[in-house]
């Protein structure tokens, strides 16, 4: 589903590469944690997959597409195959919960009929039935992140990228979010989650990919957060 072959990214000529010859393969339906300290290359890793950046070396394949050769006008089609969730939720503050989720479908040209049947379904999946008309500021952080997940998943993309989805949430709320992500994973969706949250990683016992200084230092099935604790 996602494959990096010796992917290297150098932002400024002569600078230390942000990602240094990383090779990883993630299969359909995998749940993978991407860990590493700040500046380890996690964000660059995600940006290469989203084709927000192009690799300076090596190859990147996502959902059957060779991203090095993907022309700019095909990028939107790639993005429709990837749902993305962020630490800061990125909801539209002047739209209701329902409108925020519907927005993702509107702007890729789905019919009103399709939207009206899909959005409530999705809100039910994330456990927000009955809160359709709330504004984002009326919700707790955990609820806002659920809206963001609903928006990312409403189009049923085969891949869900999560960049520190629990970074702004307390541990109890985080567990709920992880349960939701796990449920989404069980529908066959590939989930790749970048995180700092060692407790979650240790609890979930999923595959762990660790980056340090732009290099892949660990790729372990059923791993835990820190190497030293293995």
């Amino acid at each position, binding site marked *: 589903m996602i494959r990096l072959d010796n992917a290297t990214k150098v932002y400024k000529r002569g600078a230390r590469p942000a990602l240094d010859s990383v090779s990883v393969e993630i299969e359909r339906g995998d749940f993978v944690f991407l860990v590493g300290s700040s500046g380890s290359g996690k964000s660059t890793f995600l940006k290469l997959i989203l084709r927000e950046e192009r690799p300076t070396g090596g190859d990147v394949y996502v959902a059957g597409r060779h991203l090095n050769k993907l022309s700019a006008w095909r990028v*939107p*089609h790639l993005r429709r195959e990837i749902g993305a969730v962020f630490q800061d939720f*990125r909801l*539209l503050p002047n739209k209701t919960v329902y409108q925020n989720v519907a927005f993702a479908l*509107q*702007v*890729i040209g*789905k019919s009103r009929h399709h939207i009206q049947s899909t959005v409530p379904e999705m809100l039910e999946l994330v456990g927000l039935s009955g809160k359709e008309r709330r504004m984002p500021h009326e919700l707790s952080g955990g609820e806002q992140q659920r809206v963001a997940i609903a928006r990312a998943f409403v189009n049923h993309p085969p891949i869900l990228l999560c960049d520190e989805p629990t970074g702004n949430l307390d541990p109890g709320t985080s567990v709920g979010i992880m349960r939701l992500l796990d449920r989404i994973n069980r529908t066959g969706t590939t989930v790749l989650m970048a995180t700092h949250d060692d407790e979650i990683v240790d609890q979930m016992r999923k595959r762990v990919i660790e980056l340090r200084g732009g290099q892949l230092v660990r790729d372990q099935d059923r791993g835990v957060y820190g190497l030293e604790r293995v």
Partner: protein
Amino acid sequence: MRLRFILGEVVNGLRRNGTMALSVVLVTFVSLMFVGAAALTQMQIDQLKDDWYGKVEISIFLCPENSRNERCAEGAVTPEQEDAIRGVLEDGALAGLVQEVYYESREQAYDKFVANDDEGIWSSLTADQMQPSFRVKLSDPEQYQVVADATEGLPGVDVVRDQREIFSELFRFLNAATVVAAALAAVMLLAAMLLITTTIRLSALSRRKETQIMRMVGSSRSLIQMPFMLEGAVAATGGALLAVAGLFFGVRYLIEDWLRSSVTWVQYIGTQEVWSVAPWLLVIAVGLAAIASLVTLGRYTRA
């Protein structure tokens, strides 16, 4: 769905950026006014040329007696010389350019002169003192110089006059006015374009969150950029419509109602000329907005 979405975004953007949108409208309005005024001035010039050049003719004055012109040193023109000149005009290389030639004798010139002299100031003149001439009507008035060059050196010709010289000063003035209007228009158009650029940029910045999400969920670049482009285009088109209205009322009241009744000997342009300029003004406005969008949007809503 998409159309409704785009239109909604356009209305939203214009409302949120109201003052900027208004300034775009006003600047395009003024600049397109100048563009239109320059175009209309040129149309007026063409109209005057068509009108007047059709009436004017070349006068080939023939040597009178006792002329001080050295070309006429041999005395008054002889009938043989007159025939030779007529031959050049009617049968020679010039025949294609000349529409009509008629001869004005001394006596005819004298009669005409006296007829125009109501107060009898020139009553002491006699027909002998008048100059005979050929009056030549050209099939193409622009070819004046060719005819003048060909006839000027012929024996018996005193001087060749083109009546158009009388108008050339006026045309020079109108042409200069066109240049001034066009130069102002160019500066204003540049200002309009920069302003549209800024407006689009502000609009894009204020809706950064939306566009970011749209990119993230994979909406096409055209859908992301369309509302901003349309905003610029709508504002610019508003300016163009105002400019057309301004030109229409200007021509209507200044030319049709006022000049046409006070200076009657001129053929004026009218409001139908404004309508022929109007589509071009709209094209310029939309083109302006399109260029500004292309310059700006690539950077602010990149994929």
